[in-house]
């Protein structure tokens, strides 16, 4: 199973992971990561934009790369775009594999790339004004761990 999507409306990350698990009965391990808009940090809203001709193609290449690097039975990768509020899911990556470490490494790998190397732009509404967010220095170094 392979499920790569950009969603412009709300999605249920737990259903996504549950469906992946159901569709991969021969997997011994399912790892998932859910990124959500944090509450309590002063962010009133978050907006994600993308450039459709590049974004989907980039996510498909990232999925190809994950299947090539890790021993995977299934992969779901869903990223929101549009307007979100605290608590809303932004991204969910779920991976199914025979042994646990491939599934865990896959969500780590995919998130590092979605964070700083996929065609998304993110801004936050704080105290009534919008601020563009750039990846932290650590997000770039996290991604660079995977370079061969």
């Amino acid at each position, binding site marked *: 199973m392979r499920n790569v999507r950009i969603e412009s409306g709300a999605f249920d990350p737990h259903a996504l992971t549950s469906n992946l698990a159901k569709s991969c009965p021969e997997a011994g391990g399912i790892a998932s990561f859910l990124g959500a808009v944090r509450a309590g940090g002063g962010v009133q809203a978050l907006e994600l934009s993308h450039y459709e*001709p*590049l974004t989907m193609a980039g996510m498909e290449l990232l999925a190809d790369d994950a299947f090539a690097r890790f021993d995977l039975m299934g992969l779901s990768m869903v990223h929101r775009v549009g307007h979100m509020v605290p608590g809303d899911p932004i991204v969910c990556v779920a991976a199914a594999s025979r042994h646990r470490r491939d599934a865990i490494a896959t969500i780590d790998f995919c998130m590092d790339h979605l964070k700083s190397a*996929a065609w998304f732009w993110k*801004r936050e509404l704080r105290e009534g004004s919008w601020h563009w967010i750039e990846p932290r220095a650590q997000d770039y170094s996290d991604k660079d761990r995977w370079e061969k």
Partner: protein
Amino acid sequence: MAVTILFLGPLRDLAGEETREVPAPLDWAGLLDAAGPLVAEQLASERVNVACGGKVLSDKHGLNAQDGDEVALLPPVSGG
């Protein structure tokens, strides 16, 4: 026909609009001129990419957009 320049992410704020139509053909010098000084300054950075016709250019200085092409200006990304 014309070339459409598309401003992504924070470049949209600098440009003051989402898209701008300019006459074809459009090369790098023409893009810097058409994008305005604030965006042109950003385009100088290696971290800002340019896509033409849905493909990221490996050498943005070699831009050669024709009638009907969309030229997307891509600042540093942040997802997740």
